[in-house]
C-alpha cells in the first residue's frame, strides 16, 4: 500500500474525494507518522489527535467537500485554535486555550481540513532557528543537528518529515520562507492584507502575514486559496478578490515562461551568500531562461537598509503588542502569593515568562519609541520603509517579479549563531525587504549545497501573488523536488 504521508495534498484530496481512501485513514497515517518521528524532529508542541479525527470523520460522512477536504494540516502555534493550547512557544502562555479560532483556522475547518496540531517556532515568532522556543528547538529532518529555520521551523520540519502534507506559517521578516528554504519545502508569504491576521498572536502588526506552506507549489497554492481573502475582523485586510494562484501554478507547471521578465536584485546576488547557495541560485536562473524567461539585473539601492529598519520597526511594534502579557487575564502569573503588589506581579510574570530574544526585542522597541529617540529610530525606519517600497515599485516597472536566494546560507548547526544576534538576523537579509513593502514572496527549493537544501525567492507586486506562483511552479518543474534522507 502507498505510504499516504508521501503523497501531495492535491493527490490526497483527489483520493479522498474519489473515496479511494478515507480522510480518517489519511489523518491517522499522519498522526502515526508524528508519533513515530516527532520525538526526534520535535516539530509539534501539541498534537490534537481527537480533534483531527473528528474533523476527518465529518469529511468521510460527506458533511464537507472541497478542494482540500480531508487533507490534514499543521498550524503554527502562534495562531489561535479554539480549545486547543496556543502558546506562541512562550512560557508566558503555557496551557492557554483560546476561546476562539483565528479566521484562517475557521477557514481551514470550513474547508474540512483536520488540524493535526500546533507546530513549534521561535518564541512569539522572534528568531530564525526555533532555538528561541521556550519548549526546545525543532530539528531539521535533513540533518537533526541543524536548525530547521525560523520562526516557523516546526511547520517546515513537519512537511519535510512527512508529518503533515500542508502547514500554516506566519511571515514577519521571513519566518515562512527561510524555514522553507532550509528544509527543502515551499513557503509563501502572501500580500500583506491578503490573509487575515485575526487570531494571529501579534509580533509586528504592520508586517505579520499568515501564509501557506507545502511540499509542492501546487499544494501551497491550494492552501493559499483556502486561507486567503477579505476578513472584516481585520481592519488591514484587503477587500479584493484573491489572485488566482491555483491557475497560475498550473500555468507555470507547463514550463513556459516566455515573456516573463525576472529581475535579479543586484544587491542580493553577490558576496552575502555562501558559494553553494549562489551556485544553486545561478543554475536556477539558467533553468528559468531555458523556459523562456528573460533576466534583467535590477538595482534596489535601499534594500541594504532593510535589516536595520526592520530591527527598529518590528521590535517597536512588538514592545507594544506584547504588553498585554501581564498575568492579569490569562497565561502565566508569577509572584501572586500575597507578598507582592499588582505591579510587581505583572513585572515578575513578564520577567519569568519571556525568553531572552523576546526581552531583547521588547527592550530595543521600548527604546526606539522613547521620547527623544522616536524620530531618530522609529521615525527614520519608517522613512526607510517608504524608500524600500519605492525601490520595489520602480523595479516592478521594469520586471514582472524579483528573484534572489531566499536566505544567504543553508541550515546551520545548532548554537552556531545564538551568541551573536546579528549573525542570526542575517538569515532574513533577503526576505525582510518584502515585508517592509507588503508584497508577496515565495521560497521554492532550487538545489542542494553540500547535501542541504537551497531556496529560491520570487517577489511580486502587491496583490499579484499569482505571478510568483507561476514562476515558482515553472522552476519546480525544471529542477525537481528534493527529498531528505530517511529519518
Amino acid at each position, binding site marked *: 500500500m502507498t505510504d499516504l504521508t508521501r503523497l501531495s495534498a492535491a493527490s490526497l484530496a483527489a483520493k479522498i474525494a474519489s473515496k479511494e481512501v478515507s480522510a480518517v485513514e489519511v489523518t491517522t497515517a499522519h498522526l502515526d507518522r508524528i508519533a513515530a518521528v516527532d520525538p526526534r524532529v520535535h516539530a509539534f508542541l501539541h498534537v490534537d489527535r481527537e480533534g483531527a479525527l473528528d474533523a476527518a470523520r465529518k469529511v468521510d460522512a460527506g458533511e464537507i467537500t472541497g478542494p482540500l477536504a480531508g487533507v490534514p494540516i499543521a498550524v503554527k502555534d502562534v*495562531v*489561535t485554535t479554539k480549545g486547543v493550547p*496556543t502558546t*506562541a512557544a512562550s512560557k508566558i*502562555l503555557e496551557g*492557554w486555550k*483560546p*476561546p*476562539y479560532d*483565528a479566521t484562517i483556522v475557521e477557514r481551514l475547518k470550513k474547508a474540512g481540513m483536520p488540524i493535526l496540531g500546533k507546530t513549534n517556532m521561535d518564541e512569539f515568532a522572534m528568531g530564525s532557528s526555533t532555538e528561541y522556543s521556550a519548549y526546545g528547538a525543532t530539528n531539521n529532518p535533513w540533518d537533526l543537528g541543524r536548525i530547521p529555520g525560523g520562526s516557523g521551523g516546526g511547520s517546515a520540519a513537519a512537511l519535510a518529515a512527512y508529518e503533515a502534507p500542508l502547514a500554516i506559517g506566519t511571515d514577519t521578516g521571513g519566518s515562512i520562507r527561510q524555514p522553507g528554504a532550509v528544509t527543502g519545502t515551499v513557503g509563501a508569504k502572501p500580500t500583506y492584507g491578503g490573509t487575515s*491576521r*485575526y*487570531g*494571529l*498572536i*501579534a509580533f*509586528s*502588526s*504592520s508586517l505579520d502575514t499568515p501564509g501557506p506552506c507545502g511540499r509542492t507549489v501546487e499544494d501551497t497554492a491550494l492552501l493559499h486559496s483556502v486561507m486567503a481573502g477579505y476578513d*472584516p*475582523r*481585520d*481592519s*488591514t485586510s484587503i477587500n479584493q478578490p484573491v489572485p488566482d494562484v491555483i491557475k497560475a501554478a498550473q500555468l507555470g507547471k507547463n514550463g513556459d515562461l516566455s515573456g516573463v521578465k525576472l529581475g535579479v536584485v543586484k544587491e542580493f546576488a553577490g558576496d552575502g551568500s555562501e558559494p553553494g547557495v549562489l551556485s544553486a541560485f545561478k543554475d536556477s536562473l539558467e533553468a528559468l531562461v531555458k523556459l523562456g524567461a528573460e533576466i534583467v539585473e535590477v538595482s534596489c539601492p535601499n534594500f541594504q537598509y532593510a535589516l536595520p529598519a526592520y530591527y527598529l520597526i518590528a521590535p*517597536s*511594534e512588538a*514592545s*507594544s503588542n506584547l*504588553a*498585554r*502579557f*501581564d498575568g*492579569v*487575564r*490569562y497565561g502565566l502569573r508569577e509572584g501572586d502569593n*500575597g507578598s507582592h*503588589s*499588582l*505591579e510587581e506581579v*505583572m513585572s515578575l510574570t513578564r520577567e519569568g515568562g519571556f525568553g531572552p530574544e523576546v526581552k531583547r526585542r521588547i527592550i530595543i522597541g*521600548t527604546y526606539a*519609541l*522613547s*521620547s527623544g529617540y*522616536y524620530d531618530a529610530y*522609529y521615525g527614520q525606519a519608517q522613512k526607510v520603509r517608504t524608500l524600500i517600497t519605492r525601490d520595489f515599485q520602480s523595479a516592478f516597472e521594469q520586471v514582472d517579479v524579483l528573484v534572489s536566494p531566499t536566505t544567504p546560507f543553508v541550515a546551520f548547526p545548532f548554537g552556531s549563531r545564538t551568541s551573536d544576534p546579528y549573525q542570526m538576523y542575517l538569515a532574513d537579509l533577503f526576505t525582510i525587504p518584502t515585508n517592509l513593502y507588503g508584497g508577496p514572496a515565495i521560497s521554492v527549493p532550487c538545489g542542494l549545497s553540500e547535501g542541504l537544501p537551497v531556496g529560491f525567492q520570487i517577489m511580486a507586486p502587491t496583490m499579484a501573488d499569482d505571478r510568483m506562483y507561476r514562476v515558482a511552479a515553472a522552476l519546480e518543474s525544471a529542477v525537481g523536488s528534493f527529498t531528505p534522507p530517511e529519518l
Partner: protein
Amino acid sequence: MTYEEILTKYEPVVGLETHVELGTRTKMFCGCKTDFGAEPNTQTCPVCLALPGALPVMNRAAIAATIQIGLALNCDIAEWCRMARKNYFYPDMPKNFQTSQYDEPLCVEGYVDVVVDGKEYRIGIERVHIEEDTGKTLHVGGATGRIHGATESLVDYNRAGIPLVEIVTKPVPGLGSLAPEIAKAYVAELRDIVRALGVSDVRMEQGSMRCDVNTSLNLPGEEWGTRTETKNVNSLRSVERAVRSEIIRQAAILDDGGKIFQETRHFQETTGDTRSGRSKETATDYRYFPEPDLVPIAPAPEWVAELKAALPEKPSVKRARLREDWGISEVDMQSVANAGAVELIEETIAAGSSAAGARKWWMGELARRANELDVDLAAVGATPAQVAALQKLVDAGKLNDKLARQVLEGVVAGEGDPAEVMASRGLEVVNDTGALTKAVDEAIAANPEIAAKIRDGKVAAAGALVGAVMKTTRGQADAKAVRDLLLERLGVS
C-alpha cells in the same frame, strides 16, 4: 489673602480636558454592548479583553459622533488622521496601551462662546479626538477599599473599549476672578452642545462626562506659571470649586516664595480642595506611535458635509428661542443655562407644567436644595416629570405654595411622586366646603369685633380672620377660597 485679593495680584490661566463617553450601541473596536450597570465582565469579548490574536475594527458611529462634536465646536475636520497607541501598564487597561490619538487628532481649532455676568468669553478648542475607555478596578478586602491593604484586586472590563471623545481647550488667560465661573459655564455649554447632538447622555454623576482642570497663576506681565492638572472633577459645581481652590492653594505657595510643581492632583468632593496624586506620573513616557492594526481615518468630504447638515439647533440659538417662549430676560436665561437647568425646565414644560412654574421650582427650591446637598441640579433627586406633576397639583388648587414646597421636599427625599407624598404626608388643600364653612363660622364667632368691621365695609380686616382659619386648618386651606367664603358668610360679597 482673600480670593479677591489673590486675583488682584495674580492672573490665572485655565485649561480643560473633558472626556465624553459616547452613547454608541457598541464599543469602539468590537461588537460588545455598552449598557450601563450590567453584571461585571458580561459585555466583553476577545477584542476588548485583549486576548492574544484579537484585532480592533473601528466603530463608524463613533467616528461620526466625534466629527459631529468637532463640527458643533466649530472645529476643522482632518481629511486624514490616524489612531495612535499610548503605551503604559495598568491592570484595567487590557492591552496595556490605550488606542487613542496623538499628533493627528480628528478635529482641531474650534471654539465655544460662553456668557457669564452678561459678558461673552470665547474658549478656544485645541483638539477633539477619539479614544477608548478603560475597565474599572475594584480593591476588595482591607479597610479602605483602596489598593493599600486590599487582599484582592478585581477588574470589570465592561467599560473597556467604550468610545471616549476628549475635548481639549487651549489655555485660557485673562479670565481674572471669574475664571472658576467661566470654567463651569464652559463645561455646562459643552455638555448642552453634546447633549443636543444626542451622541452621549453626558451625565457627570454617572461618569459619562469627566473633566480634568489645568490651572496656573502668574504675576501680571510675566510668563504663565507652572500648571497643575486636577482630575476627578465630576460635577459642574466641582469644576468651579476645583479652579477656585487650586487658585487659592497656588497663591498661598507663591506668596510664601514657594514653587508650583507640575503634577496631577485629585479633587476632593468632600472638602472641595485638591490633593496631590502620584507625582511619578509626570515622568511617564507613553511611547506614542501610529496604531498599526487600524487603517487611517479619512472621512470623505461628502460625509462630513452630511454630518454637518444634520447638526441640531445650537444650544445658544435654542436658548434664544426658549427665552422668547418662556418670556424671561437674557440675564435670567443665562442663569438658567449656567445652573444647567435648560433641559430640566424644558422637559418639565414638556411634561405639562407652565413655563413660569417649571422655572420657579428648578431655579428656586430645587437649586437651593442642590446647593445644600452639593450636587448638580440634575442629581438633586427630582425629575422633570415629578416637578410638572407638582405644578399641575398647584394649578388644580390641590396644593398651595407652602404645601407644594413640603411635597417637593418629600420628593427630593425619595418618598415618591408628588401625589404619593401628598397622600402619605396628608398635605392636600382643604377644599371640602362643609369643613371650611365650619372653620369660617367658628372664626367669625370667636372674633365678633373684626366680623363687625368687615360687615361695615372694612374688607381689609378680613386678613386677620383668613389667618385664623388657615391656622385652624393647619395651612391646608386655599387662602383665596377662605377669603371668598368668609366674605360670603358675612354678606359682603
